[in-house]
């Protein structure tokens, strides 16, 4: 999908207008952010917005997220384990300390 983000009142208003005029090109709309279909028409609408509003429109392309392909097992397991922890108020850093779970710092340094 194409992720379109508005950074000004004018661009937000026009983004909303796309949603109103072309509902089938817009998968989801959240005020100043929208997901357009990844079709030529979706791209056309996004590019129109950028042509008109320049920097005030950001366009990104999303990919389906397959955590088994993209994310190391240790990270996946840490997420599951942490969400099933016994002590709710325990911050992750303490939870992971002294275990095999990855530390937040090292995860922050590692791109997917």
């Amino acid at each position: 999908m194409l992720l379109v983000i508005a950074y000004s009142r004018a661009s937000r208003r026009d983004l909303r207008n796309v949603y109103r005029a072309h509902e089938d090109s817009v998968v989801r709309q959240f005020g100043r952010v929208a997901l357009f279909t990844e079709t030529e028409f979706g791209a056309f609408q996004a590019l129109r917005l950028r042509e008109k509003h320049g920097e005030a429109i950001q366009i990104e392309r999303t990919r389906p997220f397959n955590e088994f392909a993209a994310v190391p097992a240790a990270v996946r397991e840490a997420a599951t384990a942490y969400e099933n922890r016994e002590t709710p108020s325990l911050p992750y850093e303490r939870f992971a300390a002294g275990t095999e779970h990855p530390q937040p710092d090292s995860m922050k340094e590692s791109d997917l």
Partner: protein
Amino acid sequence: MSGERTTPDTVRCRVGDVVRRGRVIVVTEDIEATAMATAVRNGTASNGSIAVEAPSPTPVHQHVGCLRPSMGLRTRTALARAGRTRGLETTHDQAIARVAAKLQALREEAAGSDEHPGETDESGPEESPLSSADENAASSPEQDRHAVRDETRTAVAETLTDQRRAAAATATETAAIRERVAAARGRLEARRDHGLDTAAAAEELADAIADLSEAETESAAAEQQLGRVRTAVRERRDLQERQFELEDRLANLRRRARSDLVGAVQNEFATTLAAVPEYQPGDDPLDAPPVPAALAIASLAALRAPVVLAIDRFDSPGAASEWLDAPVIDI
């Protein structure tokens, strides 16, 4: 005409070669009311064939300065602006001025941090924060066009577009050369298999490989540069976010100011409406049709620039001028 002095509220109006002066001007030539209104606003209109010398219009003039049968009217906005001409203030005015100033500073910062700053032209006339204080910022078309024109022309955004184009081009080129290498390799092997002379084919392959190496380097460099520009754009987004928040805050403040101003003049508006000739007020003064509402608003506003009059409700243009307490150019 040289001996005549134009007092502040005397209007001088020229249509073609005909010059008229006074507080009440009756134009007999066949011209559009909107053209005359343009002349009141800008000094001249219709390629200079119409000219008006008069006090400058205030923002309320945009709404009630050209009274014609088919007019539309944003009543609340017009009322709020009329209130401003009467010197009315709101508790939001200081905040509006503050936020507008901050926003302007951010916009200048954005223009300044933009590469090739010479390309952005921020030098349009800025409305004072209070003169547009009573309306939703998004509904001011002049401001929007001004802001949008600047945003689309930022050098950073254009650089990013150029970079994307370059990266895509080098990637395409590299792919084409890869195919050339594969083809050359295939031809070389075929010649070898058939025991034919391979010198030329080998040289072709070597050339293709050299070209590929060059293309891959270029492609990598383009991607790197793209990454750098993307980072620069991302950093500018923070600036944009802050601008956006301020824009929203400013619009909200203006909306509240407008609401307060409308409240302050509402009673006078209702009373004035009741006095509009040939009009029977309904339940809600704010629902009154454009012409009576505009007449009432023009009347209660402190107008010094002339009102262009293209309607027939009054006994005479002079009577209209008195009723409105404003100079009149009757079309």
